[in-house]
């Protein structure tokens, strides 16, 4: 799945988020992969994805503008690649979670 920051994304339904002092742990029960969100801003953005039409506007709402967005977009690309995030619509077919 190619990462397009100008469309909507959401957490895969098999992904759990555990808040931590440094940010959060993400665990995907389907792929059994663990990821780390290494600051609280990205946690806030991940948790607010449903309220925004695309990732750029979710970032702006969290106060991350312009060139600041670069590292965050990279991070979201990694989350898409590891299937932690899936397109908001149409709903992803079940088979997309290879294990």
């Amino acid at each position, binding site marked *: 799945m190619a990462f397009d920051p100008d469309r909507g994304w959401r957490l895969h339904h*098999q992904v*759990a988020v*555990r808040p*931590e*002092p*440094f*940010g959060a*742990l993400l*665990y995907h*029960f*389907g792929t*059994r992969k*663990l*990821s*780390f*969100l*290494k*600051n*609280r*801003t*990205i946690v806030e953005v991940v948790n607010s994805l449903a309220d925004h039409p695309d990732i750029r506007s979710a970032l702006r709402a969290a106060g991350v503008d312009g060139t*600041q967005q670069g*590292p*965050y977009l*990279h*991070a979201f690309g*990694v*989350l898409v690649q590891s299937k932690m995030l899936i397109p908001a619509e149409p709903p992803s077919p079940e088979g997309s979670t*290879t*294990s």
Partner: protein
Amino acid sequence: MTATAPVPRLIEQFEHGLDAPICLTWELTYACNLSCVHCLSSSGKRDPRELSTQQCKDIIDELERMQVFYVNIGGGEPTVRSDFWELVDYATEHHVGVKFSTNGVRIDEAVAAKLAASDYVDVQISLDGATAEINDAVRGPGSFAMAIRALENLSAAGFKDAKISVVVTRHNVDQLDDFKALADNYGATLRITRLRPSGRGADVWDDLHPTAEQQVQLYNWLVAKGERVLTGDSFFHLSGLGEPGALAGLNLCGAGRVVCLIDPVGDVYACPFAIHERFLAGNILSDTGFGAGFQNVWQNAPLFRELREPQSAGACGSCGHYDSCRGGCMAAKFFTGLPMDGPDPECVQGFGEPALAQDRDKPKSHLDHSRSSSGDPSRRSARPARAPIPLKLLAMPAKAPQKFCNESPV
């Protein structure tokens, strides 16, 4: 992922410990149909104080509340517990994923089909040789055939991505490509881990652990071919052999910081390789001053608080590799009788070997569930007889771990 805010490096945060473990090993029983010579938990006979089904479910409830995403269930052989599948179902229904290690004894066609139907259960088949000859010398006669039968059943049932779990020894280190081929053949993933001198492993470690040349061979194999091979972050003591980051994983001892072990009677140890009174943090069933329950032990046990304090680099402080290996594995040092603030027995700089050549006093665990036909008789006779009681009193660690070196100077 990225960090733009000025927060401490992740590894430092892990060293200070998290509110809940990232991953947790739970040995459900000391009973086992096999008697592998290197068994970490000296398993064989069931402990009469083993947690009941309800006690296990209560622990699962607590793990769910703490958002412990998954548990690595082992033993002993966990599938010989009559309530094993009930507990697996209970855990997955309560959002605690299960990965269990087995020698394959109960993975028949029906069980394989049931496992294939679950998204939340991961199966790890133990195999310590790519041939029956090498495997059975360590795990016992017939154990290779048993493991292969389990892999065949899982594969035939459509179970995706089982794990083949290999402890790397002097005798199988040349078989890494063969293990990988075996895993590929069953649509499985290879997982290789370090031989620890824990449990009965203490009796065979000197003869079974890979030689210095083999450690380099293993490191080079991991760097060249390890991309799709799991290691449980087990070989961080080798990370000084190459560039930082060449080995996947955190390269950190997580004992009591991000991992721990729950044993079959509810005792909590710092890690799966540390079943010894010195690494016993507390018991889930009994309140020994910091509250009962797993969360209290994890967050408040004095041992765990000690482990989350900055540890002394000791004799390794002036070594240029210290940032990579962080002095190696605590349990490997402890059970080979080396100082806790000195080099790992398999130190890549070779500092372990002269230390091992000296007179050593190898600490013996207070627990041994070996059946009488196996294990080192001298260890069993040295151990006081313990009457089975429903709840055991907690034996607190006598000293902080960083002071172990004061006890057995090399």
